[in-house]
């Protein structure tokens, strides 16, 4: 399941709904991304997440499908927030549940790595020196590429 929303999410409630009643699940891996209060040497006041409505949902759904194709998942979830977020706020939740923990961990990392390089979101940071669009990180590309290497024929 994927969702793009302005509102915050309740980690406990989301995970409970995801796993409830499925007794095939032995391991659940979850990642939550949060807004940090610093950007390099500067204090961050807030960040604003812009996205491409329509394409965002398609991209996330495709990433989730790919994760389910690669690993035997019992459940998966991606929630990404948009709009203005302050330090300490939750940005993104990805979760993957499987019979065994290795699949859950790998799928969870895959989901966030691919989301970061393929889903059409853009962050703008507000600091004392003004608003600034976040630049893509080379580390994120590398993290995403390790999954590409495992399956060079996968759709972008």
């Amino acid at each position, binding site marked *: 399941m994927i969702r793009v929303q302005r509102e915050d999410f309740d980690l406990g409630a989301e995970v409970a709904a995801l796993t409830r009643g499925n007794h095939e699940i032995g391991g659940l891996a979850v990642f939550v991304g949060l807004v940090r209060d610093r950007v390099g040497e500067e204090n961050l006041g807030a960040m604003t997440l812009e996205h*491409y409505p329509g394409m965002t949902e*398609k991209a996330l759904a495709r990433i989730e499908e790919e994760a389910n194709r690669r690993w035997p998942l019992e459940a998966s979830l991606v929630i990404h927030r948009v709009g203005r977020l302050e330090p300490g706020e939750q940005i993104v939740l990805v979760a993957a549940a499987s019979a065994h923990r290795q699949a859950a961990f790998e799928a969870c990392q895959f989901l966030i790595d691919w989301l970061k390089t393929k889903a*059409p979101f853009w962050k703008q940071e507000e600091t004392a020196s003004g608003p600034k669009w976040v630049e893509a990180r080379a580390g994120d590309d590398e993290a995403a590429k390790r999954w590409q290497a495992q399956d060079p024929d996968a759709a972008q």
Partner: protein
Amino acid sequence: MKLLYFAWLKVKIGVAAEEVALPPEVGTVAELLDWLEARGPGYAEALADRSALGVAVNQEYARPEEPVGPDDEVALFPPVTGG
């Protein structure tokens, strides 16, 4: 054709979306970018670094050689930074 711009491309170009009538010589993504670049300094600046430019045709990532037509929705954007 419906054009959409995101993040700093939107700021440089000055609009979030516009409808354009394509001239007959524009048949691919690359040709569309060449044509757009010539529309003004904001466009030229926004499209200067094509290696860093994301293009989606009808909400799917597209390569320079991909065909585009008048009924398409084409989006241009910088590298994504979500998550």
